[in-house]
Structure formats: C-alpha cells, structure tokens
C-alpha cells in the first residue's frame, strides 16, 4: 500500500464532502489507487475467469430470489397448483414448491432457468479458464498455490451444482442422489455408515433435501466466495501473466491499468454475460421438472442424465462391465467389495490428484524452478499440451458415455455398440490424443521456424532471368518475429547422481520422464541462424542444412 498523502484535501461541493468523509474514515482511495493501477493485459483468453465470476454473482442473485419461495421439505402433500397434468398428485414440499416457482410465482420460471443456465455457464467458464491456465503454463512458479485454489473452486462448483440439482426432488434429481448413495455405499467398511449418516437413515429418508439445502445456499456458496477472494488476492499479488511479445518480459506487465478503461470494460462485460444468460433463460427451457414427475425410488426413466459437469462419473459407471468377464463383486473378510462401482472411480480420483499436483510434477521433471510471468504458447510446450489433450480426452470419453443412450437413438446405432466403442476410446483415446497433439505442436513449431527464417509465403511467383521460378517470401517484421522466437527451450535433463554420488530410483524415473517429455523438440531460431538465413536469402538449401537444431531426433 502506498502511504497516504500529506496535505489535507478540501472538497468544495457537497457530494465531494460526503465522499471525503467516507474516504477519510474507510480509507478507500489508497485501495483504489493500488488496485486501479494494476495492469491487465488484453487477450480474449484471459476473460473466462471473469465470465465465471460474473456467473457466480448472477447465481447469488437468482438463488436468493428462489430461496424466498423454495420449501426444502420432503413431507408429502397433494398438488393443487396451476400445472394441470399434475393436479392431485402426491409429492414432496420441495417438488411442489419448485412447481409453484415455475408456474405460480411471477417471473419464477425465468429465475429458475436463469439460475440453472448460470450454473452451467459458471462451470463451463471455470473449465475453460482452467484449460487456458494449464495449456499456457500459467500455473508455474509463483502461481502454483493459486492453481490449487482454482482446482478447489472447480470441485466446489461441481458440488454446488450437484446439490442444487438435487433440491427440486424430481425423478432426475432423485436418480442423481441414488447414484451418489450407491457410490458412497460401495466404499469398503465405512460406506454404509456414511450413507446412513448422510441420509439420516435408509435412502431416501426425509432429511436429505433439507441438508442439501443448507449446503447449497449457505455452506458451499460461502466456501466458494472465500476461495474467490483468496484467488483474486493472489492474482493481484502475483500480477497478471502475459503472452510473449515485444517489450514483454518476466519483470513487467504490458496492458491497460484496471482503472478507468479496464474497469469500464469489465463492468460492461458483466452486463454482457448477464444479458446472454437472461436471453437463454427467457427463451430456452432447462430442467423441465414438470415433465419428470416427483421422485419415487421405483421408476427410472429413459434419458436420465446428470448435468454435464457430473457426466464423467455417470459415464464411467456406464462403461464398466457389470459381470464380464467375471462378476466384479468380491467378498474379503466378510466385506463386500462392489468393484463394478469402485474400479471406474479410481482413475477419476487419480485424474483429480494429478490435476492438483501437476505444477509440482512438471517442476520435478523439468527441474525448472524459475519464476515465469510470460506464458507459453501451447505449441511451444508440446509435452504439456499433449498431456492436457490426453486428460481432456479421457474426461470427454466418460462424459460422452453418460449420454450413450441418446447417441444410440439419435445416430441410429445399437446401444451396446456405442458402449463397446466408448470402452475402446476410454483406453485408446487418451493415447491417440497425446500422440496427435504432440505431433501437431511440433509441426506448428517447425512452421514458425520456417516463417522466421524465410518469411511468409506471399503467393507471388517470380521468374528469374535464367528461367527459374521462385516464390517471393516476405520477411517478417520485428514485432511478429518476436512472438515466434521468444520461448523456453527445454532440454532433456538426464538423471544425475545426488550428493552421496548415488542415482536413486526416483531420479532414474525422473530422467526417463524428462527424456519422454523432451527428446522430440524444435528449438527457437537463434540470432545467428537468423543472420545466416538473411545472409543467403535465396539459398534455401544452405539454411536447412545449417540449422542443426531444427533436426528432430526421430
């Protein structure tokens, strides 16, 4: 914080005096000064965090409105509201009040839909934001902890969505709870106890909606809020990252100050997000609970799916064979282990652990512990991009599996065939994605090299006096070239002996991983190479042979 100014400011107008009164007591202006002069670089990929933040604000607003009318009880009553097809049906207070919000409260359906669309937008924006951070390497030192906070936010968002989805007590939300109950019960030894604890007795009981409600409107939003504050605080402390470019170094940030230009843009952006969501909520149905009917543990409906962010565990369960090639239920010391449920959850748990730990994993493999404020373009970190592509594919296959029945009916293929194909994709997809993403990155890097050394292909053909035709290459300007050559050139760090002169098993593994990460690489163009290329501008051969670094090992 900067020190306060010495001279006493004398406001002349009345509003000025009020403002000054508040300021001298609340100390706002130093904060504005500090915060308002933060520099925020402009790039569209930097805005998804904001989209998530604004969606969250809209969730708070619309959720508060819903809370005025929502009744989180499970005691049953007979419906007499204005939705005709359900009149006289027995249902819980929760379901009836959601029907009331939808059909009898002015603007209720709009706000329900706004709340739910905002929930989808929130999780989507959060996911895209995380992908941006991952693929540009923004999680590296000093931002590792903020990556962890982001991962916690991602988990909290999923839990928030799931708890909200469970509230209306329609058949879909009950099915979701039923699966959650089954997963809990599958945990060896403590599972049944945990399920009884959560539901206050046998599933479904009469307690769960009330408990979910407190979690949904109080505990989880409060946790999310705290995490957002911590997250933003760290962003301010660390300053923003930036893409490589002329004049951009590890020690500066190039962009607009937050105030006034950026703040105005951001404020406007809030209303844009609000507008998009309001348009969706006003025109497009979401969670038509009146179709699903009140929850009753016996019927299961075709097309029962969770919201997309809960799709991956559901899909994993659908992919797991139940009794092939043998029954997956084992009994050990009298405890039943339903592996058909547990087994598919293990890779998901590992994926999440790896997500939290990734900054440290990468640091360990690369031995790169430096501060990074300049981002990687994804192509310039082929190993990381490939790992990310594999993880996304793994996640996406499971998410797709959650809609296997709809894929079957809509593309006129057999449900069993869809499952077989997705099972194959579950194992092969990530490997293929890894290989393809990596090859694409290397190819793009080589293209960049070409462009730096020879300029852009202009499409103009020139006939030389002796009859040869050549294409004219336009040299790059200084600024564009900078973007293409300024990147980290990681090299294989072979295993080394430690202080005692011993190469540990761990270190050997690290060495192998490092080779796997970096043995194929394309180095940035060095000034000498550039010099050489410009020296013999027309002689393409000479350049190709001279740049030994451009050669790939394979």
């Amino acid at each position, binding site marked *: 914080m900067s020190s306060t100014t010495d001279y006493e400011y004398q406001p002349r107008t009345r509003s000025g005096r009020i403002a000054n009164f508040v300021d001298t007591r609340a100390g706002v202006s130093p904060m504005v000064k500090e915060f308002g002069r933060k520099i925020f670089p402009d790039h569209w990929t930097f805005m998804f965090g904001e989209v998530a933040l604004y969606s969250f604000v809209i969730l708070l607003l619309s959720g508060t409105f819903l809370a005025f009318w929502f009744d989180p009880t499970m005691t049953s009553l007979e419906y007499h509201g204005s939705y005709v097809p359900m009149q006289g049906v027995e249902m819980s207070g929760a379901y009836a009040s959601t029907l009331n919000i939808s059909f009898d409260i002015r603007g209720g359906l709009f706000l329900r839909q706004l709340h739910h669309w905002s929930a989808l937008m929130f999780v989507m924006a959060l996911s895209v934001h995380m992908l941006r951070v991952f693929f540009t390497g923004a999680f590296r030192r000093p931002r590792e902890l903020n990556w962890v906070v982001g991962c916690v936010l991602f988990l909290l968002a999923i839990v928030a969505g799931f708890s909200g989805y469970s509230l209306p007590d329609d*058949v879909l939300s009950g099915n979701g709870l039923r699966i959650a109950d089954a997963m809990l019960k599958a945990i060896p030894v403590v599972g049944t106890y945990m399920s009884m604890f959560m539901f206050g007795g046998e599933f479904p009981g009469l307690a769960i909606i009330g408990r979910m409600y407190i979690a949904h409107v109080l505990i989880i939003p409060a946790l999310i809020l705290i995490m957002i504050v911590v997250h933003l605080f760290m962003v301010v402390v660390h300053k923003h990252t930036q893409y490589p470019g002329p004049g951009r170094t590890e020690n500066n940030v190039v962009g607009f100050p937050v105030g006034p230009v950026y703040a105005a843009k951001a404020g406007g952006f809030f209303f844009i997000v609000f507008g998009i969501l309001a348009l969706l909520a006003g025109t497009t149905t979401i969670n038509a609970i009146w179709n699903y009917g009140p929850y009753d543990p016996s019927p299961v409906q075709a097309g029962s799916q969770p919201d997309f962010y809960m799709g991956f565990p559901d899909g994993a369960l659908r992919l797991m064979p139940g009794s092939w090639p043998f029954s997956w239920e084992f009994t050990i010391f009298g405890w039943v282990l339903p592996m058909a449920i547990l087994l598919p959850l293990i890779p998901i748990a590992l994926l999440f652990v790896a997500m939290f730990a990734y900054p440290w994993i990468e640091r360990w493999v690369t031995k790169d512990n430096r501060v990074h404020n300049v981002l990687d373009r994804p192509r310039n970190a082929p190993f990381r991009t490939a790992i990310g592509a594999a993880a996304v594919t793994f996640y996406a296959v499971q998410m797709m599996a959650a809609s296997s029945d709809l894929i*079957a009916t809509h593309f006129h293929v057999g449900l069993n065939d869809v499952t077989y194909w997705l099972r194959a994709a579950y194992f092969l997809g990530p490997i293929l994605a890894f290989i393809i993403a990596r090859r694409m990155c290397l190819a793009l890097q080589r293209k960049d090299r070409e462009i730096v050394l020879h300029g852009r292909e202009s499409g103009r053909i020139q006939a030389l006096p002796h009859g040869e035709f050549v294409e004219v290459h336009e040299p790059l300007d200084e600024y564009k070239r900078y973007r293409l050559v300024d990147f980290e050139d990681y090299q294989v760090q072979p295993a080394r002996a430690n202080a005692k002169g011993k190469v540990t098993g761990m270190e050997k593994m690290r060495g192998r991983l490092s080779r796997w990460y970096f043995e194929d690489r394309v180095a940035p163009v060095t000034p000498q190479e550039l010099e050489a290329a410009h020296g013999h501008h027309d002689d393409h051969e000479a350049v190709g042979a001279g740049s030994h670094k451009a050669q790939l090992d394979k």
Partner: protein
Amino acid sequence: MKALSQKRRHPLAVLALLVMALLLTGGLYAVATTTNEAKAETTTYSAQDIEEGQKLFLANCSTCHGLNAEGTEAGPSLIGVGAASVDFQVGTGRMPMQMQGPQAQVKPEQFNEEQTKQLAGYVASLGAGPAIPEDEYLDVTKGDSANGAKVFLANCAMCHNAAGAGGALTRGKYAPSLMGVDEAHIYEAMQTGPQNMPVFNDANITPEEKRDVITYIKALDNNTDPGGFNLGSLGPVSEGLMIWSIGLAVVIGFTVWLTSRSA
C-alpha cells in the same frame, strides 16, 4: 356374536361357507371377465370385410405370416393377436415390414382406413383377441391426467422418457417418441405390447387408466413449453450441448470483440 360362534360348528356351516366362497369367486370372475371382454367384438366386421381382408392379407402379408396367418420363419403367427394389434401395426405403418432388423420401423402407412379395417377383420376372424378400443376410452376430455401421470411415470417413462421423448433399449432396439401418436394407437400399443414393449392388459392398467395415460400423453403433446425452446426434451444432455456450443461461441465472440482494440 355368541350365537354365531356357536353355530360355527353346525354341520351345515361348511356347506354354507362353500356356497358363499363359490358365489364370491364366481362373481369376481364374472366381473373380471366382463371388464376384459367389455369391448370385445364391438366393432363388427361384415363377411365382405373379412373376405376383402383375406385378399389383402394373401397379397401383402402371407409371405411372412403364412397363407393362413399361422406364422413362418419370417413372421409370427397372427392367430389370436386381435384386431387391435393389426390396427396398430398397419395403422402406424410398421406392417407390412420392410426389412428384418432389431425392430419394425415406422413408415408412411401403406393402407387406407378401410383396408386396415378389412385386414383387422380378417385377423380377428381367425381367433379371439383384443379388439379396437371403443371411442369412450379414447376421449381425453373424460380422462384424469394426474392419475395418468402417475401410471405413465411408473410404467412407461423407463423406456419412453418422462416427457415421452423416447429412449434407447439394448442392441439397437428403442422405444419411440410418443409425440403425435394417435389416441387409438397409444391404447392399442398398451393392449398388445408391440415387439419389445410389454403388454399392459386390462388387469394391469384398466381401460379407464389407459384413458388417463392417453390424456397425460396428449397433455404433454399439447404442452406449449412454458420455458421456451425445449431442445428436444432430452434433458441435461441437450442443455449441456447448448451451453458448450452456442453459449461458449457467444461468450468467445464477446471476449474477442472486447479485447480487439488492444494496447
């Protein structure tokens, strides 16, 4: 009470009990069969209908169902399936079947109402079976959609989806969407259980309840989507696709626009 408990041991008591039991079961049976038979053979087919029907049958159906509808390798016996089954299968265009597959496909009907009636009459003449439902049980103004919702969600939604949008079954079979299906065909589907659908006979779901179900399905059909576009009534999957396609595209559009006038 005392007197009654003493007379219990009277030799004629057993006889009296037997008579009472017989009367009860007989009466119940009579009631049960009349409800089942209530509509049997209400639509009468003239001899000419049946004759015309037989001609149509020989020309169009006998290759698979046999010359006397006794069944072949390629199609089941139709003896005793009743007029309702024919009206459903032919009226929805499933029969004559076009190609063997997991399930007969719906296609534009090949026969007009008159011909369908003749075919139904012919098949009904081969053996007693469920008849075409009476109009009374198809009149949705008399149905109770709340009860229909209950019956539908308990019996049909697991295959046909809560909103009647349809769903997948194993190995390429599927339960079709129920939107826009004729009242009579809904009734007949429940009564005859076409292909992979179970039969819901009148003991399972009474004719009145069937009418309630039809009322509910028609209410869904006529629903004016209070929430706006229904995205195919496919639930969270289409909602997720919506946000990840159009939602994301619009947001990206705005972010690019906002950052286009950059430093």
